[in-house]
């Protein structure tokens, strides 16, 4: 390719557009799904099936006045929503949607996604502290302790996968799983019999890391008003929302790449970006499904689950895989 800068610009614009469109229409999907599960219609007035609801919401959010509470720390209050959205978009740069559609294939792609994901906790912290409201501060402390505790089993599980595939390049990880469902990482093999457990661990951690119900202690509306974004209105709130959905898409993409064979077909036929999209949207649907069918956990139950169950299991899995990889 002779157009280096243009390629970069196109990649960035495409990443932002993909994140924004997903954010807008996943909100719609979430509300429709919630309606379906709770036996009510959900948004169905604007356009066919309510499909024009997201643009209307967007216009409403952008037209609203940007309010900053009197006691808030203005600088941090303004920075936090941007910090919630920007790292999520950065992570899209290295995600391979198919063997040709990737903005920048890095040898340390997994590491890059986790490096930028770890900035999300910083955004929540600054949002809570910057708005100087007790609900927001309490929620941000909760959300951050949750993020820290679930990052550990998640990273240990990723190390297991990295040991098996011998690479941190996401495209190479997918390439090692080509050729049908029995090659996918989710299927137990001789050197890693606990792979389905790893998948489950990673799935739970992805739910917790993206602050999704049943782990949405950071915005538990029944106890903390709206959690860390209590004081945010208009586009500040909008950016948090978009950041959350962008993170969900990234989480689903990571699960797809690490465990479900990326853009490969279950039967080895016609690999391509359509399989990738199908898989991530199925995963996102299951996220929505879980959110509206499980009640919220308590903060102690949540932290105990991570430290007393998930971390020991993931460590055991890591050691077992390391040992078996040495043997076989």
């Amino acid at each position, binding site marked *: *390719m*002779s*157009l*280096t*800068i*243009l390629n970069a610009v196109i990649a960035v614009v495409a990443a932002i557009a993909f994140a924004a469109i997903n954010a807008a229409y996943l909100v719609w999907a979430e509300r429709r799904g919630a309606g379906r599960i709770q036996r009510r219609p959900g948004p169905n007035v604007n356009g066919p099936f309510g499909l024009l609801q997201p643009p209307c919401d967007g216009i409403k959010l952008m037209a609203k006045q940007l309010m900053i509470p009197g006691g808030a*720390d203005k*600088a*941090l209050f303004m*920075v936090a929503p941007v910090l919630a959205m920007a790292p999520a978009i950065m992570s899209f740069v290295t995600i391979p949607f198919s063997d040709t559609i990737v903005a920048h294939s*890095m*040898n*340390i792609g997994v*590491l*890059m996604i*986790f*490096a*930028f*994901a*770890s*900035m999300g*906790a*910083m955004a929540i*912290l*600054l949002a809570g*502290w*910057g708005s100087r409201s007790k609900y927001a*501060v309490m929620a941000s*402390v909760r959300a*951050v*302790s949750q993020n*820290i505790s679930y*990052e550990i089993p998640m990273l240990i599980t990723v190390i297991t996968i*990295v040991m098996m595939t*011998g*690479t*941190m390049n996401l495209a190479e990880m997918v390439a090692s799983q080509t050729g049908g469902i029995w090659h996918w990482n989710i299927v137990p093999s001789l050197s890693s019999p606990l792979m389905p457990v790893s998948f489950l661990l990673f799935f739970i951690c992805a739910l917790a890391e993206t602050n999704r119900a049943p782990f949405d202690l950071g915005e538990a509306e029944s106890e903390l008003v709206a959690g860390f974004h209590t004081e945010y209105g208009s586009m500040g709130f909008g950016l948090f929302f978009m950041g959350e959905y962008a993170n969900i898409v990234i989480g689903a993409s990571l699960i797809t790449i690490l465990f479900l064979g990326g853009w490969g077909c279950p039967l080895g036929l016609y690999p391509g970006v359509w399989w990738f999209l199908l898989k991530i949207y199925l995963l996102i649907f299951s996220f929505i499904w879980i959110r509206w069918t499980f009640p919220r956990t308590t903060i102690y139950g949540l932290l105990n689950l991570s430290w007393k169950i998930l971390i020991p299991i993931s460590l055991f899995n890591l050691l077992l895989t390391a040992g078996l990889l040495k043997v076989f």
Partner: protein
Amino acid sequence: MNPTEWSWMPGIFTAEGFAGYADAAAGIVFLIMLATTIIGGIIACNSERLVRAVAGLALCFVGVAAIYYFLNSPFLAMMQMLIYIGAVCITIAFAIMLATPEESKKQGPAGPLTGPLGLVTAGLVTFGMIGLAVNTKFDIMPKVNMGKVKIIGSQLLTTYSMVFELVSVVLLIAIIGSLVIARHGRSK
């Protein structure tokens, strides 16, 4: 791809046209990273509110990570982000939230020697840095690898195994120390 196909594009967008500007662009990018680091450091040192200081520290770390990336060490850059922003800054912010009800920095009265001593220290450090910068011969290192994990791992366990072991001992001491402190508080 046929280069003439894109002839309607401004020259800078093509690789051939961009080559002439590459050094200038790299210089500007480097200056931006440097400015980010220095501004972050200044915020970290001079802000009145501790949480703002932590945010400044995070900005400083982003700048440093960017410089690592710029110097062809993507692995180090990502580790800087993951460890220093994802863990260190958040732990510091956590400690601030849990410890101090008021968030402004407490400053004791400055002694009469503070100013002169500070000046002397700053002068010494500046001279040392200038001496280092002038007397060091800066070689452009060859690009070893683009963050291949296998190479980094085998290097850590062979060439740099001493450093690796020492770091793990330091970490072990830190863990034991924090456990001792926590235990002490609990028995009361």
